[in-house]
């Protein structure tokens, strides 16, 4: 590439100043970005990736400072620009796109004004010109009906549309560099797939350089040309997508890949290999290699001595890694054959759901509503759900936000009661029984692991007593000593040290809190545990460990696990059967292997295709859905998926609810399309050559 680079970072080091003194957040970061190139920065939380992004803009907040190195934007040193010049660069040459699109748009201004002011301020364009260009750019980011979007306020748009508008703002400024900081993390998978495609198109069409920051290796692989893997403030490996994903060299990068479930993995044959330990706090970093304490190849006396430099791996390739034993480690030899685990016997039916319905009434107090006599409308959160779960089985409920999966969990747990149908736990009807009316043994039979690790424990109480309280309630055990010993046992099971009994939740990391949450759920020997996205808020390496822990405890206790998730990779990895939901309907259900191979329901097919895959040996067919999720207040009359379905048949889909058809024993699809036609569909994933070649 002969072109002048848009951005060059040379040995950038950034520190924050806090109570603990100076904390180096980023150490020795160098990168070069050329026009039209997309570089990815990937890493777990706290590794310094967002700090890099802020430093590029010279925006460090009150307690941060660049302590070494340079940022050159088109050859000019950003540190030497005056405040006025810096302002111009930030507005019109570098655009930043954040995780939360709603927070990036001004809620009190119409999209029109927010877009038009950009050319009007930066280029003194006339109003007519600005309007023209705004409309054009909205079409470029593939927003349907740009005229309407122009006149809308941000809250009238969906999350995906808002993010497209934010990207449009960056393009409108003719930015030569887009910095995208987790731009799709707050969006649903099918919407995310659309944005990812857009981001890829942009760099091609506008020749914009992009820096893409994400924790998701799959997304990075699908969007970027070069990738930087960061760990604890340092780049540990850098290379092109192909080099790095085919031949990861640094033990950390290697470890990360072992933590991600890909469609070719299975919980029994190829379990995940979590990285042990946790990310060191910035002020507790070890001497020498930061990854040392967690690394399987650690050699005392070598890895823990001096600062490790970033080294080039092959002479002719831009592939670097920060590891002193780089040349000595043979990852293929070291990779122990995966520890095989026995599949579990699936026992008798524990939960049976039959045509379960949950409607929420919405009362309309407007005069119009009263006059028309339509005072009550219903949000149909769950419409006729039917499935069963057996002992020791893992059933996954998959769907995007608003599909009714959390509502179902609430009915199951007794926080809400059903509107119709039946819900039986071990032969007892519980759908109409709120939790306060359930006898203690039924309450203890059904427990839950919650999504948000920061919320799941009460910050005011110590960890031990919170678990003890559960045991006390479910077993009636009152003896303080016995209770404490029982809690110690549970802590041992979830692999936490016993002195965590006296810790406060704020002293625990996210993964540790989630382990306590699991201990709490399993304290009363439940027959069934509902896990609502238990690992979605955790970092990759921690999530893998928590997932494996959950599986291990299940193997021990033969508990039925109801796993609620939007992440199909994880679902495929750990579940025995899957229920796919959309707008309160079950679109498809059956054994995991059946659901993940044709015939598919068109929605399942799209959902599968939307999942970013980090494994370069898997090719997938690309299906990008148009439009947004319809509102549950006003669902389509016929098939709920009819408004976005790429295999839409015609009037029948719009007007008639689809029938549920059994395509194989235990596998049923709710769709109008004849089963024979669905069977002809090609699989979404095709597995390339399975042999991973070493270096």
């Amino acid at each position, binding site marked *: 590439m002969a072109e002048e680079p848009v951005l060059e970072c040379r040995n950038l080091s950034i520190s924050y100043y*806090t109570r603990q003194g100076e904390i180096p957040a980023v150490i020795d970061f160098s990168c070069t970005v050329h026009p039209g190139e997309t570089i990815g920065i990937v890493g777990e939380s706290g590794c310094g990736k967002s700090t890099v992004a802020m430093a590029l803009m010279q925006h460090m907040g009150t307690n941060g400072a660049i302590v070494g190195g340079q940022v050159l934007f088109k050859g000019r040193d950003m540190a030497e620009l005056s405040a006025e010049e810096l302002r111009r660069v930030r507005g019109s040459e570098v655009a930043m796109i954040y995780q939360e699109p709603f927070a990036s748009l001004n809620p009190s201004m119409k999209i029109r004004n927010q877009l038009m002011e950009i050319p009007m301020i930066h280029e003194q364009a006339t109003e007519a010109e600005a309007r023209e260009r705004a409309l054009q750019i909205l079409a470029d980011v593939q927003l349907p009906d740009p005229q309407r979007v122009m006149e809308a306020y941000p809250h009238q748009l969906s999350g995906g549309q808002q993010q497209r508008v934010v990207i449009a703002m960056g393009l409108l400024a003719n930015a030569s560099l887009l910095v995208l900081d987790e731009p799709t993390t707050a969006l649903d998978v099918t919407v995310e797939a659309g944005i990812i495609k857009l981001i890829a198109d942009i760099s091609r069409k506008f020749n914009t350089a992009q820096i893409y920051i994400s924790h998701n290796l799959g997304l990075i692989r699908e969007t970027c040309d070069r990738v930087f893997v960061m760990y604890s403030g340092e780049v540990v490996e850098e290379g092109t997508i192909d080099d790095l994903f085919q031949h990861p060299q640094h033990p950390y990068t290697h470890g990360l890949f072992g933590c991600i479930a890909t469609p070719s993995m299975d919980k029994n044959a190829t379990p995940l290999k979590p990285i042990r330990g946790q990310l060191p706090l910035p002020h507790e970093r070890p001497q020498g290699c930061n990854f040392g304490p967690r690394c399987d190849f650690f050699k005392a006396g070598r890895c823990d001595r001096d600062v490790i430099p970033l080294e080039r791996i092959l002479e002719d390739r831009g592939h670097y890694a920060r590891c002193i034993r780089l040349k000595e480690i043979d990852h293929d030899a070291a990779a122990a054959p995966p520890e095989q685990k026995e599949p579990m016997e699936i026992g008798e039916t524990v939960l049976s759901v039959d045509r379960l319905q949950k409607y929420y009434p919405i009362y309309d107090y407007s005069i119009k509503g009263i006059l028309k006599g339509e005072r009550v409308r219903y949000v149909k959160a769950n419409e006729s759900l039917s499935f069963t779960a057996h002992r020791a089985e893992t059933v996954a409920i998959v769907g995007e936000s608003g599909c009714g999966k959390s509502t179902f969990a609430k009915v199951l*747990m*007794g*926080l809400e009661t059903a509107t119709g149908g039946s819900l039986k736990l071990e032969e007892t009807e519980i759908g109409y029984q709120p*939790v*306060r009316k*359930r006898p*203690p043994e039924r*309450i*203890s039979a*059904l*427990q*839950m692991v*919650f*999504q*948000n690790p920061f*919320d*799941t*424990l*009460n*910050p*005011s*109480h110590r960890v031990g007593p919170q678990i003890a309280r*559960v045991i006390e*309630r*479910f077993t009636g055990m009152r003896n303080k000593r016995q209770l404490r010993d029982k809690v*110690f046992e549970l802590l*041992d099971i979830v692999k936490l*040290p*016993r*002195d965590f*009994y*006296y810790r406060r939740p704020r002293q625990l990391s996210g993964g540790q809190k989630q382990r306590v*949450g699991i201990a*709490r759920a399993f304290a*009363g020997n439940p027959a069934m545990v509902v896990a609502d996205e238990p690992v979605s808020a955790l970092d990759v390496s921690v999530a893998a460990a928590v997932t494996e822990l959950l599986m291990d405890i299940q193997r021990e206790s033969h508990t039925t696990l109801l796993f609620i998730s939007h992440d199909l990779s994880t679902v495929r990895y750990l579940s025995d059967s899957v229920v796919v939901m959309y707008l309160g309907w079950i679109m498809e259900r059956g054994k995991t292997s059946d659901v993940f191979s044709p015939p598919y329901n068109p929605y399942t097919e799209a959902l599968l295709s939307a999942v970013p895959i980090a494994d370069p040996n898997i090719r997938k067919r690309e299906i990008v859905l148009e439009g947004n999720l319809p509102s549950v207040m006003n669902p389509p009359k016929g098939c709920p998926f009819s408004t976005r379905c790429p295999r839409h048949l015609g009037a029948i889909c719009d007007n008639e609810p689809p029938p549920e058809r059994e395509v194989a024993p235990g596998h049923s699809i709710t769709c109008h399309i004849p089963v024979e036609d669905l069977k002809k569909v090609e699989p979404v994933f095709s597995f390339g050559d399975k042999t991973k070649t070493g270096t």
Partner: protein
Amino acid sequence: MTDSQAQSTPAMPSRFMGLLRGIALMRESWFGMFGAALVLFWVIMAIIAPLLPLYDPLQSFTTLEPIGTEAFDGSGTHWLGTDNRGRDVLSRVIWGSQRVLIWASIAIVCAYIVGVTMGVIAGYLGGWIDDIVSFAANVLISFPVLVLYVLIIAFLGASGVNIVIAVTFTTAPIVMRIVRGLIMDLRTRDYVAAAQTRGESAWYIMFVELLPNARGPLIVDLCLRFGYTVVAIATLSFLGLGLPPPDPDWGLMIREAVPLGTYAGHVMLVPALALSTLILGFNMMADGLREISLRD
């Protein structure tokens, strides 16, 4: 960690160290430290008043002696002079601090018990209970505070207990609204859902799971509210609706000194200064606490 360590029974960390660390945090805000020092000064004065070599606050000497005059009977010095009835101002100010702090504490505790209970119930249970409690609170808040004070005292008569009732009526609704807001935010947390799904009673959830987590903002508010209550009690005394004379009381002292004007300025200035330093202390302490709690 080796297995033998993992199996051993760990010891309970000391609560005392936790408290020390909490106090150490206060050092981060000199503003808050200064406020706390002011408050602490008056609290200590109130506690050790009976031990100090002071004149009887009710005993009369020569009237309106200036600062630092020797007593006529040679028994000592009136360090801050005497008032229009010949009573020792220093002694009255110090004894007055005891009175104002005791009554303010009782009033605040009552207001908080009522306000917090109402707020937790309204915030957690919601529905028609919330509607009723919130409506009652809004009605009370919509009265001008002073009017409410005068009305209540006029009905019930001037006494310490009635001041407590008046302060409870005016402060509890405000506390209730703060607590209600905090609880409405907290009740959506997963640990509340966890408590619900193990069948805990509403009372347990409200007072064991929720209330302790609202304590941060409440402690800050308590400090501020303490200052306001001291003002309220002084104002009532000043208006002649407060604690009945002749016991020493700062508001009353100011009221009695007003006719004297600048003729004997110290008689008014001393209790006024005492009052302002105490209130300033509470306000600065509240600000300091807020500043610390906002930092990470």
